[in-house]
């Protein structure tokens, strides 16, 4: 009956794998092929140019700028999102008082879970449009309006959010404002992920620790965090992808898609400009392929560093 199973499995897999190969893998290969040409994108004229496009990447100032902006997000998005998500998950699951029923979350944690998770059900573009109104750079913006009402911001000098390239800690302010949205929209999902992982940690471990006199600080850093290591590590990789993308937010929210004056330029926005405005698809494909290689290397590195014996319980 062994071969019967194989036929059964193949029967189910053939179609999805075929579709996947045709609609996902094949375009990737095509893009890699185009990256070796000078194709403009609007015609079927193309010439093979070898690795010229890749060499150009290294001397492209705009790409370099975009690269460092991506690196900024690569570090900050996972860091802040995971820290916030862990903090929230800890409060919701084991941060409350302990009583006869054992360890529990803070009062009303069920409601908070729904509220924190809510941004996850919105599409990123919807989030961006919503934050456009929150960040609106005059008295009608949510933040500016409130701050003006209580007199913290003068009507003649509103906070300009997306239009502010002035560096804060060496990074343009506009990137920090984008980071806030990314963290806000991402933290809910990882909070739920970490909550689930925390629930699978046996309560008696906590009770034993508490009996031994451990406070919240120690239970979190000595018990919760080590036991969540696997989950946090995977979350880190996923957030890394999101940080390397960030395209929707930059595209919808920033002036001239990467502005003001290139202050929020990222890999994807440069790629978009190169492909669709400048009509250099070959070069743009090379950017895409370079980004893909970078992403894969990063993920591999990440998973290797965090590999460790798992603790069984």
């Amino acid at each position: 009956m062994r071969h019967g199973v194989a036929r059964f499995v193949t029967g189910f897999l053939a179609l999805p794998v075929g579709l996947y190969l045709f609609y996902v893998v094949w375009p990737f290969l095509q893009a890699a092929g185009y990256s070796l040409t000078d194709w403009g994108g609007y015609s079927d004229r193309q010439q093979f140019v070898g690795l010229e496009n890749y060499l150009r990447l290294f001397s492209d100032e705009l790409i370099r700028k975009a690269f460092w902006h991506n690196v900024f997000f690569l570090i900050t998005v996972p860091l802040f999102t995971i820290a916030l998500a862990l903090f929230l998950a800890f409060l919701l699951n084991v941060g409350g008082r302990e009583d006869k029923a054992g360890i529990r979350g803070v009062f009303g944690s069920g409601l908070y879970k729904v509220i924190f998770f809510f941004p996850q059900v919105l599409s990123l573009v919807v989030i961006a449009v919503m934050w456009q109104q929150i960040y609106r750079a005059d008295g009608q913006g949510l933040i500016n309006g409130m701050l003006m009402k209580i007199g913290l911001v003068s009507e003649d000098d509103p906070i300009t959010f997306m239009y502010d390239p002035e560096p804060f800690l060496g990074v343009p302010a506009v990137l920090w404002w984008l980071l806030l949205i990314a963290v806000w929209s991402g933290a809910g999902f990882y909070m739920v992920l970490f909550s689930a992982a925390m629930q699978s940690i046996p309560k008696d471990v906590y009770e034993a620790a508490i009996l031994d006199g451990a406070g919240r600080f120690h239970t979190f850093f000595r018990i919760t965090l080590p036991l969540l290591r696997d989950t946090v590590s995977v979350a880190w990789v996923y957030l890394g992808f999101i940080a390397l993308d960030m395209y929707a937010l930059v595209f919808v929210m920033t002036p001239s898609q990467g502005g003001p004056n290139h202050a929020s330029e990222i890999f994807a926005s440069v790629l978009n400009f190169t492909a669709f405005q400048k009509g250099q698809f070959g070069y743009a494909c090379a950017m895409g392929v370079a980004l893909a290689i970078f992403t894969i290397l990063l993920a591999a590195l990440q998973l290797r560093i965090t590999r460790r014996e798992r603790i069984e319980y």
Partner: protein
Amino acid sequence: MSVTPDLDRRTLLRRAAAAGLLVTPAAGLLSACAGSTPSQNNDSAGEKSDDNPFGVQDGSAVKVVIFNGGLGDAWAKEDQAIFNAKYPNVTVNMSSTQKIKTEEQPKMATQPSDVVMNSGADMMDISTLVNEGAIEPLDDLLAAPAWDGEGTVADSLLPGTVGDGTYQGKFFVVNVAYTVWGNWYNSALFDKEGWTPPKTFDEFFALAPKIKAKGMAPYVYDAVHGYYPRWALMATVWKSAGKQAVIDIDNLKENAWRAEGVLPALEAWEKLVKDKLLLPGKLDHTQSQQAWLDGKAAFIQVGTWLKNEMAATIPPGFEMKISDYWGLGATDKAPNDVYAGAGEGIVVPAKAPNKAAAKEFLRAVLSKAGSAKFAELTKSLASTKGSGDNVQDAALASANELMKNAGSDLISIKLWNFYADLDKESQNLSAELMAGRLTAAQFVDKMQTAADKVAKDSSITKQTRDA
């Protein structure tokens, strides 16, 4: 406590992560580059005659894509009716969108639509389309007899229309809307306050304190799209430095940006920003236009599509009128030249399956009947002569008035249509200047550097203009 199956969670998650790799950031970008197999090009071959100059085939279909922006798309349906009255057996598949590039670019190399109105923020770069041979030269359309008037199609167009659509010596782009740009004001308010719309920056700077005294900002601009303030900056440059200076700039001539008159023009704008005459805050085009309609600012600069774009929210008693861009005064080389020209370009892709019907459809768009409907519905002039003659509208009348008193040349700048790099750079720098982060001198330096870089780059096809 729990069992560990042979496929543990870590392995599962790692595999999921590896699979996720293929669908996350790079994925969207990579597949954006992918194309598909080209299809056969089967142009219709009907009988050609004076009445049917391109040989439209009976029973064929033509796909028309309209940009549904400030002008809406109602006018195009009128053109469709005019076209179908003559060709009842030709199917017109009309659709409208704001995402021209997003929807049309992927089809350009293989199966494009027949008629594409290439306009708006998401338009396909014209110089790229021309360089790639992706659009059809339409010189035969110009030479064809007009749909319902005397002479050829070219004869029926307003001055500048043919020039605005010509690239590398060939006519590629049919710009259907004739736009006049300038400074808009509420003439009801100005009459009440006894203010006269200024003609020069000096007059504006003299009027500004009076406007401020009424609790109004003298000026508001679109801080999101760099090309909005750029129209105004370049109009002042033209007026101050003259036509030849701008032609030199467009032709990437050495030190063209350092020509006499360019810097003072930009310094006037620098002063406007430094003197805090702008409405505080950063608004986009419709937000800034609404702020102007709400009486928060006295002047806004934009083209004649303004009235149609804001039609729903114009307050009662508000009488919008356009006045010419401000010059610097006595030193101006071309003080009376008006920024006007044909915009909202329609192109026919080189691989369009039914080019004959596409050109015939454009002939219908440029007809007297079609363009009169255009002016009536959009409150903007069409690029066909006489389109606004029967439209009663104060805004349109003020634009007509402006055109009547115009100098011999129309202000037209080609730089941003010629080179995508300079388009981006000039938009960014215009926004920076208006934000007060750049002085006029820095603007000139940076534009000159960018122009020199493009001039030296052999991978960029150069374009030139003579007039």
